[in-house]
């Protein structure tokens, strides 16, 4: 595993995984902005991730694209790369790198729980596991997302004169919330912030059931009474949200586990819906991967490193530049 450094760079063949700056060859795990950037020469990713990058950054955001199916092997010299579903968002992938019988897996962002908006996570046995740790503290035990979405549906039923604005990241979370609403038989039109439109259209085109949606427009205030509006978190606190009638501010995020955080951010209805693994899922993945060497990125590394060492696993944090707590999608 010495072939890859703490920046997820394989010097031998000049390949980066999720680089922050423009590089020659970049393997991209998924379309979130802290992983997929503009300006690489050659991007290797799933077809959906490439589509999403083009939607967000334009068709020319890289010089060359190589789409890979899940499970399809791609070799550069004596390195074999295979992408497997990560269950994080549409198109998200883990990267398996094989070299001289050593198997190394970079999970990227992943969740183990079920999600109709993307292919479900696949566990891969390996020697070295580079795992994310966004929710790497034992306080994070995600509840069933169906129960959380029911809270929203119930609140909409009770508060008929209010509109509910749900903060959700534009890519992935927004569409998952919409899909969860549909699973729970909420069949009304869902109203979305303009910045979500293209991505929602793409999810629809990919046959993901997010139901009927419409961009919010300058309609009469009372029109939005009783409606659900989905917007990126940054819009919640902005003047944008003031045009709606008595809005109840909701937020769909794993961070909503902590009530004090929700309160600080002025969230009235926190919905604990996460696209990352919780503590128990992280531990479970580490255990089942059979890896002896665990590297930990993204988030709350300390507790997870401590846990792994207690299990006699070799473990250390990888600090990847440009990513920090709570800014990641």
């Amino acid at each position, binding site marked *: 595993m010495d072939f890859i450094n703490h920046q997820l760079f394989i010097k031998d063949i000049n390949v980066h995984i999720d680089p922050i700056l423009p590089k020659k060859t970049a393997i991209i795990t998924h379309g979130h902005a802290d992983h997929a950037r503009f300006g690489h020469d050659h991007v290797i990713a799933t077809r959906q991730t490439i589509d999403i990058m083009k939607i967000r950054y334009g068709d020319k955001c890289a010089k060359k694209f190589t789409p890979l199916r899940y499970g399809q092997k791609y070799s550069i010299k004596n390195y074999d790369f295979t992408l497997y579903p990560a269950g994080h968002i549409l198109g998200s992938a883990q990267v398996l790198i094989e070299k001289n019988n050593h198997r190394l897996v970079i999970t990227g962002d992943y969740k183990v729980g079920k999600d109709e908006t993307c292919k479900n996570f696949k566990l891969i046995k390996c020697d070295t596991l580079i795992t994310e740790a966004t929710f790497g*503290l*034992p*306080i*994070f*035990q995600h*509840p069933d997302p169906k129960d959380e979405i029911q809270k929203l549906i119930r609140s909409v039923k009770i508060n008929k004169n209010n509109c509910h604005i749900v903060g959700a990241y534009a890519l992935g979370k927004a569409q998952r919330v919409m899909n969860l609403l549909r699973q729970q038989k909420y069949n009304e039109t869902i109203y979305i912030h303009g910045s979500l439109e293209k991505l929602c259209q793409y999810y629809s085109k990919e046959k993901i059931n997010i139901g009927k949606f419409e961009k919010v427009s300058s309609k009469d205030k009372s029109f939005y009474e009783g409606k659900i509006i989905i917007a990126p978190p940054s819009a919640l*606190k*902005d*003047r944008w*949200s*003031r045009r709606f009638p008595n809005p109840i501010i909701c937020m769909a995020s794993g961070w909503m*586990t*902590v*009530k*004090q955080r*929700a*309160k600080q951010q*002025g*969230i*009235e*209805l*926190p919905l604990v819906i996460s696209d990352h693994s919780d503590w128990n899922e992280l531990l479970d993945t580490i255990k089942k991967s059979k890896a002896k060497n665990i590297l930990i990125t993204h988030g*709350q590394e*300390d*507790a997870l490193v*401590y*846990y792994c060492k*207690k299990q006699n696993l070799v473990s250390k944090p990888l600090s990847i530049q440009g990513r920090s707590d709570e800014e990641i999608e």
Partner: protein
Amino acid sequence: MKKFSSLLLNLILTPSRNTKIKLLQDYFKILDINRAYALAILSDQFSFQFIKASKLRELVYEQVDQHLFDYSYDYVGDLAETISLIWPTNKESKSQNLSTLIENIKKIKKSEINTEFSKVLSELSNNERWTLIKICTGGLRIGVSERLVKTALADLYNKSVNEIEEIWHGLEFPYENLFQWLKNEISKPKIDFKKLFHPMMLANPIDEEKDFKRLDANEFQAEYKWDGIRVQLMVSSNSVSLYSRTGDNISSAFPEIIETTKGDAVIDGELLVGGNFKPSGFNDLQQRLNRKKASKDLQKKFPVFIRAYDILFYKGKDLRKLSLVKRRKYLEKFQKENTTNQIDLSTIINFSTWEELTKYKNNFYDDLNEGVMFKLKNSEYLPGRKKGYWYKWKKNPKLVDAILMYAQRGHGKRSSYYSDFTFGVWKENELVPIGKAYSGYTDKELLVLDKFIRNNTTNKFGPVREVKKEIILEVAFDDVFPSTRHKSGVAMRFPRIHRIRWDKPINEVLSIKEFKKEFKID
């Protein structure tokens, strides 16, 4: 428990006062034993004898690795919430009534607490566990005051909140008499008034333009307004106790008053720090506040006394229906008989015109008084802040020009605007912050400032924006003290934005040295 627990959760997450009242009213529509426990908890009058924060820590260490707990606590920053989240989840939670749950917990023997109480925690859902731990650790901090609960109850059952206030301190769990009276089943509960804290009569701030036109100066008498804490002293032959404005018993923190005062009366006054009845400022008083006990050293270094304003009871006689002038006679009588030197009387200022009173307001006692209070001579002693009887008139504030440095979004109705402002003065070629204000500006000024901040941000630190240094704020404040906690070495009391100084260039703002000199800070 489920209902109470979701009440608490909704209260903590709701910024609006009206919504909070509505939530409380929905919950208190029924008045039963569960609501009685809830009322005791919400008014901070309930606690478990054996289960406190330290016991809870002990229990959680039995469940999870100590290091993992510490990492988590560090992240969450709230003990009750950390424990409730980290506690191993039991998929099948079993819900009980609030009252059944509490009574079952009370039955647990001390020797069996560790196993039995852990079992209780495991059987609860996450939110209910959070609620129970909050109850154990006390101090809910959910943004609901006792007063708000009373207001909600009063509105719901068509009573006045003052009526509830008046009997409140004589009520006890399980509040049967209160509940029956609210439901109109019995008349208002009779309370032994001699033994309880009596809600205080409070003054309204004066509106100089409106009020002086309609008020007759001859009907009022005035006193100096002191910057201490308002207290109620209850003296009888067998006990003396001291209460804060909110009815908390603070006797143990001021033994010198408790041990020496003699007589039979209920006194209303201001607690101040200083020797020989000369107050030495709020900064010194703070050394004596929020303490359970006061050492001999502390008593010597920061001696306290009470400046008495009023008297409510004298030798068992209720004086509250008498006029202020008559009550004053009784107060003087009490003082004559009280031979100790921990109490003095507030001086009465007689005046015949409002202009005359202005002089007293602004120039007196080398800055130590905050202004004046003036009271209707024939006013009864009425609880709360009744209009038309007592007024407070503060001195003109101190003013300083300072440069806007940082801004943060506000809360409540100002939540989407940048409305919390940090301002500073020069220290050589840099700026050093001297205070933070989130009030005083007009709605129009707020819009202008908000727009300026959005367009002129030079740096972001989490929610805080640093802005281009070009706006000068005229800041009004009540006082300023030396402080070791702030970089500038000063701490302001009640700073607010007076106006925006568009006319002044930033290099004319004072330096911190000049600022300290002007406001006499060493």
